[in-house]
């Protein structure tokens, strides 16, 4: 209980379908570039497992590629092989066995941003490490930026195969016992390139109006929803706006929210931009995307997750209390402090019990360190 005998908003559970998420703060999906041929390993167990013990109610594994050509680098995590199931299940067993946290994974395809190599090696002599030399695909044959290769426009014949890959990846995510899958439809990756008019110049049924640009994402969602267990929720991350004219605007995002809501999406993870090169402000003010989450939540009547510069307990309590979003995702702050939620509980005077092994941590008086 909090100081006023109330559970602080961020420590209130949330139910999505049959899934109980124990609190409102999640670790945002973050690329770690530690997989080998898409397989998770001890790094992921430690990285994600320590955040689960650290109290994040929702722990997101990173974007897992639905096919090898959908990877940013050869070090990306994946779900395109059956052999990916077992290592992910090890991570899930740890999270489920040692914490109350829900575990999520993003299904993605990097599209025209694929094959660009490991982030921290870009622009270095080892920059080629992790660049696999495979061709890329996108909504239209327009490169993300000059130095990236020009993608091939996805053909209509490719669509069923692509959908099948999402479906197979979703089945593997279920076999690995993930609690939520999130379809990564943001940040200029393959499906995002369909949604934005800046990257989608098609004149078939997958291009043109917003409805048409949403045709492929909706088809993928329907197919995945079909195989994903009824009692488990699905999320989707979108870029709420493109930060570039004449790209998508927040009004478009509200429409996207309504379409997903009508299809039965459980929660929308609201990011923005990165659809084009430079398509996001360099300086990201604290909480700069929260207003988008709120607009969509109110306009489309769908639960949302807020992400971007979320790092402050008071601000998160306010976001949840005021209904700007249902879940707050922490990226950088979650990397900086795996036990953020335990420390937040301490600061709020909320009794968040420690695992047996760590009981003596409850006697520690901040400041630490």
């Amino acid at each position: 209980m909090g100081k006023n005998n109330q559970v602080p908003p961020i420590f209130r559970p949330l139910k999505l379908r049959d899934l109980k998420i124990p609190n409102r703060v999640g670790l945002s999906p973050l690329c770690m570039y530690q997989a080998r041929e898409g397989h998770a390993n001890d790094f992921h167990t430690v990285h994600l497992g320590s955040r689960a013990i650290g109290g994040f109610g929702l722990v997101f594994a990173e974007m897992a590629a639905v096919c090898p050509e959908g990877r940013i680098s050869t070090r990306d995590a994946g779900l395109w092989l059956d052999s990916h199931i077992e290592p992910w299940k090890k991570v899930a067993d740890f999270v489920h066995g040692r914490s109350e946290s829900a575990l999520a994974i993003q299904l993605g395809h990097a599209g025209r941003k694929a094959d660009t190599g490991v982030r921290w090696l870009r622009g270095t002599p080892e920059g080629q490490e992790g660049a696999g030399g495979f061709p890329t695909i996108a909504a239209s044959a327009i490169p993300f930026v000059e130095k990236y290769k020009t993608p091939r426009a996805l053909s209509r014949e490719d669509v069923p195969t692509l959908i099948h890959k999402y479906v197979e990846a979703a089945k593997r995510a279920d076999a690995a016992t993930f609690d939520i899958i999130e379809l990564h439809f943001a940040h200029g990756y393959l499906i995002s390139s369909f949604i934005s008019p800046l990257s989608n110049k098609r004149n078939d049924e997958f291009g043109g109006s917003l409805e048409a640009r949403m045709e492929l994402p909706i088809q993928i969602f329907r197919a995945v929803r079909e195989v994903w267990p009824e009692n488990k929720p699905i999320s989707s991350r979108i870029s709420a706006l493109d930060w570039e004219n004449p790209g998508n605007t927040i009004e478009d995002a509200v429409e996207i929210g309504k379409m997903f809501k009508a299809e039965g999406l459980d929660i929308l993870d609201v990011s923005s931009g990165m659809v084009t090169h430079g398509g996001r402000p360099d300086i990201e003010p604290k909480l700069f995307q929260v207003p988008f989450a709120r607009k969509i939540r109110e306009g489309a009547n769908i639960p949302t997750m807020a992400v971007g510069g979320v790092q402050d307990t008071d601000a998160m309590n306010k976001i949840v209390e005021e209904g700007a979003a249902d879940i707050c995702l922490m990226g950088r702050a979650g990397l900086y402090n795996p036990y953020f939620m335990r420390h937040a509980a301490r600061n709020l005077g909320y009794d968040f019990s420690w695992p047996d092994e760590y009981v003596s941590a409850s006697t520690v008086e901040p400041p630490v360190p």
Partner: protein
Amino acid sequence: MTEQTENPALFSPLTLRNMTVKNRVMMSPMCMYSAQDLDGTPNDFHVVHIGSRALGGAGLVCTEMTQISPEGRISLGDAGIWDDKHIEPWKRVVDFVHGHTDAKIAIQLGHAGRKGCDPLTWERGTPLAKELHWEMVAPSAIPFGPNSNTPREMNQADIAKVREDFVSAAKRADQAGFDMIELHCGHGYLLSTFISPLSNQRTDSYGGDIKGRMKFPLEVFHAVRAVWPENKPISARISAIDWIEGGNEISDGIIVAELFREAGLDILDVSSGNITHVRRPDVQGLFQTPFSEEIKKHIDIPTITVGNIATATQANDVITSGRADICAIGKGHLYDPFWTHHAARALEHDEGWPKQYPAAKAFNPNP
């Protein structure tokens, strides 16, 4: 000023034999009672527990007290290295630390002696079922406390077996890839009970004055040193004082340090007390650092200090003033696995973050 001299002392490297630790923070050994199937085998929990603290920036992480024999356990949940089957699971922990971080990893080897047959710490309310008890051994047949079983006094064969168990454990620790061994000679566990006159009332060469009482710990040290690679250091944790009338005092702690230094010990981990059920006084602050300081005043040996070190400034001051060479952080690491990264930030020191976490390096928690 060079970059080197601008670093806070806490973030200066330290070399012991061929092992260089990047900073002066160690995760203190802490019992986790989480071994797989209660047979001593470390598992995912240990990988995450130790691995996340290595990612958290500590220059040296130490395993919990890891038992050299099943009868040397405190509880059934203790981690062990008494069987070859333990090597591979420990190697997994070591490989994580070496593969994903630039921390070093030590293993604390121990034998609980008369402090065995305990339940898991969170089941303390219920004594361990009688049928699960094992025969405890100690230098003398004196129980730890009024509610403890009386141990059997060790005979020559017992002494030889324990020494051999330490040696076998050390060989396995090397196979698992550990960088350092710490012999647990403190806190009332087996080797500690030899050192304290309260628990050692032997009349043979293993008892008597402090030199006699140190005979067995030194035999173990020499035997382990003989099989532990020349280029890898060894530490020993001691109880510098017993906190009990008639027990060891700091003058004894200084002799213990001297004997270990002469024997070739590389670093002394200076704790205190817990020799009998009479607990050491609940003292606030850095209550054990004066013992490390006192030992260093008399004996030229690197030390680790441990006990209630909470803040970055406290730890840095300890190193700056030369009161110890390494600060072991226990509870602070349970509370915050990234204690060291956060300490660096508090000291405005720009130290390395794991390459996977570049965004954390750039992160400002108080914008």
